[in-house]
């Protein structure tokens, strides 16, 4: 009973909130990744770098205008255009080749983008002011409202994206292309442009999550790898190509990491998500929430 007696309930609840907030951002990153994979068969290794560059664009826009919401929109659009350009120049020539080529190419892109960011912005992390300054009391903490807004906003973007896939014309094209690329082409859907659009959309989602995350921990050139790894873990645990699975897995893993951080150093808490991955691979290699095929 000693354990329960000393159990830090307040800390536990605080970490639950933290975990859900982090999980919603992670879910947004991972759904972009799973979208690009599910539809294009492209494992986007540069996804973390798009997240990082999006955050940098956000930092720059805020420095000039002071408007967070403008920064969010500008970052998403800029990175979407960058994503479209990347897709047209490097991924389009690879259509029809072994999908392993795409992981190599996007790895090359991540190398370029990361070193560009280091060269352009330097190694020191940039801070971004909280866009909303209000607090509410959570036990002994002044908990910033902003974090709740992030969680809500990430959820809203994912929800909007789901509705877009389901009802919008372009969304229907995307689903048609996923199901049968050749048939979709025969029905007059411009498949190459659908693929470009999907990549741009995934990139925009990565950029938006980058801007949302930036006020929490600052922005630096090397943050991409951490995020892309976490997003990969989420996507494998959640089941590749399953949007709902990604969201659930993202929150699940972020919660576990938050709880682990009560007792462990944050850099070691990462291992918890690795352990989840190993267990998933051992017992259900297709992912916990994969749609049966």
């Amino acid at each position, binding site marked *: 009973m000693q354990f329960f007696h000393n159990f830090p309930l307040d800390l536990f609840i605080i970490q639950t909130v933290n975990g859900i907030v982090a999980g919603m951002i992670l879910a947004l990153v991972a759904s972009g990744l799973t979208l690009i994979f599910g539809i294009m068969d492209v494992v986007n290794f540069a996804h973390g770098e798009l997240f990082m560059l999006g955050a940098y664009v956000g930092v720059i826009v805020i420095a000039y205008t002071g408007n967070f919401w403008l920064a969010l929109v500008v970052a998403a659009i800029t990175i979407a255009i960058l994503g479209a350009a990347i897709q047209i120049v490097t991924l389009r020539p690879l259509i029809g080749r072994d999908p*392993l080529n795409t*992981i*190599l*190419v996007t790895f*090359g892109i991540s190398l370029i983008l990361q*070193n560009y960011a280091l*060269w352009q912005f330097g190694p020191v992390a940039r801070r971004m002011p909280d866009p909303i300054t209000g607090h509410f009391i959570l036990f002994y903490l002044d908990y910033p409202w902003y974090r709740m807004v992030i969680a809500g906003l990430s959820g809203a973007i994912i929800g909007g994206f789901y509705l877009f896939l389901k009802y919008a014309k372009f969304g229907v094209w995307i689903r048609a292309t996923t199901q049968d690329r050749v048939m979709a082409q025969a029905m007059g859907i411009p498949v190459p442009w659908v693929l470009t659009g999907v990549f741009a959309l995934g990139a925009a989602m990565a950029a938006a999550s980058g801007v949302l995350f930036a006020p929490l921990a600052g922005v630096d050139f090397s943050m991409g790898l951490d995020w892309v790894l976490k997003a990969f873990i989420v996507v494998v645990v959640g089941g590749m190509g399953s949007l709902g699975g990604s969201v659930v897995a993202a929150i699940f893993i972020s919660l576990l990491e938050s709880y682990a951080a009560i007792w462990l150093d944050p850099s*070691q808490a990462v291992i918890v998500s690795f352990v989840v991955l190993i267990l998933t691979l051992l017992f259900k*290699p297709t992912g916990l929430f994969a749609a049966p095929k």
Partner: protein
Amino acid sequence: MTRHMTRHDKIYWAGFAVVMAILIVAPLVLPEFWRRFLTEVLIWGLLAMSSDLLIGYTGMISFGHSAFFGLGMYGAAAALLLVSPPNLWLAIGLGLVGAAAAALFVAYFSTRLRDIYFAISTLIFSQIFYVIIFTWTSLTGGENGLIFSRPHFSIPFLVDARFTTTTLHWFVLAVVTASYLILRRITQSPFGMVLQSIRENEARTRAIGFSVQHYKIVAVMLSGLFAGLAGVLYGIQNEFVAPNFVYFITSGDTVIFNVMGGIGTLVGPILGAGFFQLLHELMSRVFGDQFPYLIPLGFIFIAMIIFLPQGLLGFARRWLNK
């Protein structure tokens, strides 16, 4: 049964002899800096070659070779620091044990997955080793790594000589050449044929009756052992180990060496390592140390995947494997 040398064999071994002769003589004529440079290229080449067994022959891309390389390094460091006087063979032995342990772990879990899932899971596992090494400061020295002195080259009762940069180069050359010949033999053996058949058509290989997962586990283990050997050599060459080498960048470089040099050729990755390091060195000489050399190298890398997917030595792939 003695097999007569065919024309192909004659040309192959003649070429082999010429390259060996150049590499043996090179440290005698090169200045100190380039001597060390060449030795390092050979070590990176060994790392890349080990990974080629997976990428080129089995069709599995490993983004986690830094784990095997790093564990080999730290294993060697442990042997050199704990045993006095430091013993070369013990360092190699313990390095291989370390790499084998990492390889067993990665092989057991990652081979359950295919294609990109395999690639990503190897990356994630290598990060586990990185985090452990980075945070276990009392054992590994954490961020600062470990410093030790280079062992002597010793054969009991016969030789006990201090390494110079020249003799170390020869030693590395001997290890890398032996590894090349062993790996070549492996890829040409019935076992290697099964690996290549997995690369070509995994489902059919399974249908024929081969236990694909066992073959993959052995392939990852072998690959990890040779990568660990490269780590041992690198540690001995530089007299220090640091967690940076266990980080993802090492794995990424390994993949780049392979793609640039030509996968499925074994010698191509060594050439790729040389090409990469040479471009790096030239760019930092021309544009200065701060120049982000990975940006132009990244562009070259992407262009090669699109326009020259076979790599520099791809044109000779069939011939080299004959």
